[in-house]
């Protein structure tokens, strides 16, 4: 900001942009509240869906944040860690077991199997990516690492499309998770409850792992300073691999939850959740683990409530199509006006 202070025209333009967006959002919100077109019930539904969606974003966002912490790079291929696990597990486990009737009899065992396969595949993909694509470039300019990550991302997408097919596959529905339960005067889908519970458990486990175990401490030490960590007897390469394992596990769990909620998987499914989770990570302050969780939740809520709250009354036709625009606009706005995120960046280094 300070480096460009002298250019008042630019600043004026940015201020104008900020004011315009705030005005649009405020106007839309006031209109919606005054017109009162949407029932309270619908609002509660939006909020609950937002929380469920946000939980998934949070799980993926943690991957971006952790890798950013240790490697100082945006792991563009993280969305493929998310996709690869559940795509493989659906094709190789869920669909065959559903066809044989095993899934209907033992849904719990099937889901455990699906999760295990998803985690194993995601972790393998993550380890291969780290070893082959990222490790040789650890000291290279950042632009090169980013381009490599983009390449890796495309490679994995089209690899899995070739391996398992490019068409979308339906994830079999589970009877036990069908329907909804009453909650706070509304009906909540059982899958949404499961998503929130699993997310909370995963985040608690991650928190324990990062703060209480030796391996977690090693990750934090490497994130702080690789050279000093190496001097303290930490195996940096192993710790970085471990970070990728952690990230991929979280992404795989998010993938399983995604399949349960949306009941469809395909090779391209990682892209949009990946970008949004990255937005969430930036929102919470990249490198900041609790921040990623908060950012994910915030983004999920914003995206779910936003279109109805401030686009509906502006007279925009099919305003729900612009859901993704809201997320992307938010990413742009956050990066322009508060690049350190809501909770603040844990690592205050220039992003050169």
């Amino acid at each position: 900001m300070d480096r460009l202070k002298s250019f008042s025209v630019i600043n004026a333009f940015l201020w104008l942009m900020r004011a315009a967006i705030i005005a649009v959002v405020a106007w839309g919100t006031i209109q919606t509240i005054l017109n009162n077109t949407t029932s309270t019930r619908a609002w509660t539904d939006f909020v609950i869906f937002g929380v469920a969606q946000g939980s998934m974003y949070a799980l993926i966002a943690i991957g971006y944040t952790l890798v950013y912490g240790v490697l100082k790079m945006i792991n563009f291929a993280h969305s493929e860690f998310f996709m690869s696990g559940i795509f493989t597990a659906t094709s190789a486990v869920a669909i065959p077991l559903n066809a044989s009737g095993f899934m209907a009899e033992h849904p719990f065992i099937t889901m455990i199997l699906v999760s295990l396969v998803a985690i194993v595949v995601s972790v393998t993909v993550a380890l291969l990516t780290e070893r082959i694509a990222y490790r040789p470039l650890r000291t290279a300019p950042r632009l090169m690492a980013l381009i490599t990550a983009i390449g890796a991302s495309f490679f994995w997408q089209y690899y899995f499309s070739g391996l398992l097919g490019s068409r979308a596959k339906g994830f079999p529905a589970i009877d036990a998770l069908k329907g909804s339960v009453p909650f706070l005067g509304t009906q909540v889908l059982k899958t949404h409850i499961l998503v929130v519970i699993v997310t909370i458990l995963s985040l608690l486990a991650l928190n324990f792992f990062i703060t209480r175990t030796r391996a977690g401490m090693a990750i934090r030490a490497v994130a702080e300073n690789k050279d000093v960590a190496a001097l303290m007897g930490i195996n940096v390469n192993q710790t970085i691999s471990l970070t990728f394992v952690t990230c991929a596990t979280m992404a795989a769990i998010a993938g399983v939850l995604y399949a349960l909620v949306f009941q469809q998987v395909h090779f391209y499914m990682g892209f949009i959740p990946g970008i949004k989770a990255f937005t969430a990570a930036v929102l919470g302050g990249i490198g900041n683990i609790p921040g990623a969780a908060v950012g994910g939740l915030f983004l999920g809520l914003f995206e779910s409530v936003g279109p109805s709250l401030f686009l509906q009354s502006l007279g925009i036709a099919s305003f729900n199509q612009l859901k993704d625009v809201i997320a992307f606009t938010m990413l742009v706005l956050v990066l322009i006006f508060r690049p350190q995120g809501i909770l603040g960046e844990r690592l205050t280094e220039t992003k050169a």
Partner: protein
Amino acid sequence: MSKQLNFDWRRTLLQGSMAGFISLNISAIGMVVLFGERYLIAGLITMGQAAFLLAPVGMAYAAAKSTLGKWRILTGLVKAAVIGLVASLFLVFLVWAERIFDLRSVLLNVSPKLISFLTFGAGADQGSFLLPAVTVTVCLLSAAAAFIPERIRKALFFGLGLTALVGLLSPILVERVRNFLGQSTVRVLFASNALQLWPGIILASAGAILYAGYGFAASRLKPASTPKSALATRMARQAPLFLLLLSLPFFLGTYLTEVTNNVGIYLLMGLGLNIVVGLAGLLDLGYVAFFAIGAYTMAVLSSTGPLGIGLSQWVASMGLHPGNAFWIAVAICVAVAAVAGVVLGIPVLKMRGDYLAIVTLGFGEIIRILALSDLMKPVLGGAQGVLQIPKPSIGSLVLLEPEKLYYVVLAAALLAAFISTRLRESRIGRSWIAIREDEDVAEAMGINLVRTKLLAFAIGAAFSGLAGAIFAPKLTSIFPHSFSLLISINVLSLIIVGGLGSIPGTVVGAIILVGLPELLREFAEFRFLMYGILLVMMMINRPEGFIPSDIIRRELRASESENPTPAT
């Protein structure tokens, strides 16, 4: 003993396993089956077989090449045999796994057809022996190639490479040869869209001899000193190339000209992105936005359909052919795209590297979603797009065919190349490079960051807008799905493969990455998979690209000798 022979069993086994793993994956993702239909040399080898043999052969060659010591030839050959054997065992495993389990329900491409390709049509039982035998043989051959003197080896590789290329391109060559030399020549040279065996052998040996002869002649002749040539001599030297470019549609025919036009449009975008990424170092992943803006501006201005604003009708009312509206619209498109470049550039002025990439990616997606949305439907047509865009015309001459449109593309590409070259050598070009190297230092040296960066965005966007403006009438109708992120990735890949900051590199990159997949329809399916591999491999092994710009090459070589500092 083992030390003397320089034989590392573990390493060799690992190399074999890696090669086998790669071949296994190439087979499982469907490359072998897809390529298997096509013979490179009629009756001898298909592209699919070449695909799964490539990894073991390459690995065997590398292993043999790196072998040193007294018994190096023997050791190298043994290594190659082991690598071939281990690698082929992976494929034999796949053959038997397919036979025992129903793999196809999960792995779509592991089909009986794949097995027949892998076993050379012999079936699982005999194939289990035939496959290792063939693999080991070709591995031994490639290892042997590593030990023949370098000059002969290079000539040999050149000949084989030439033959492989001709074999790959034979469906197109068949059509061209038929056009110029008649059906009888085709029948001698090609059979069922592949090179015949004997012409193939002749081509390979002729290529090898020519290459060797050329190398010999070049080594005898003293390299002529090249003084800084005057403008006149330089132009005289470029005249044949220029003439060739002008007469290209005559040689290429309709289909190949169409492909060339696509290459030209990507080249335009590549030249633009080259300024933004290659010179100014601003990684822009939303570059497709400006392409879309150019195309949609052209569409809305000149369409004769309900969405057009009537420029064509206005031109028609002046008594001209409506296609002449193109020339007015193109200027507007370029201007609009340049303005869009500045407008989208202002918010990202302060960002660097990663954040810039993601924000521009966001911009690209926002533009695409907006074009697709009902919000902009009254203007941009939503998913149905804008139709009825007239082809450009000069006076009453309508540039309907690709052969005529080619000259528009050529003129635009030449203009863009000229502007890029002149800009790079100008003060502003050096400012861009300075910003790329170090923003803070550049600013301290008195470079106006805001102006310089915005200029890069604007010029890059203008080139892309120009490409879009040509793209729209070329297709006569445009849809939002033509402007996905994949285009940005495609353009980024081509400038990286060619060499960041290098204009000849961009040309080569466009030909390789856009032209080849169009010619090799089989490859098109795996286009983005290969782009992914290319991006990673280029960054790791050859970050300067195939035809690097001088500055980048110097810089990378210089940084290798210094102690690399960890990126923070």
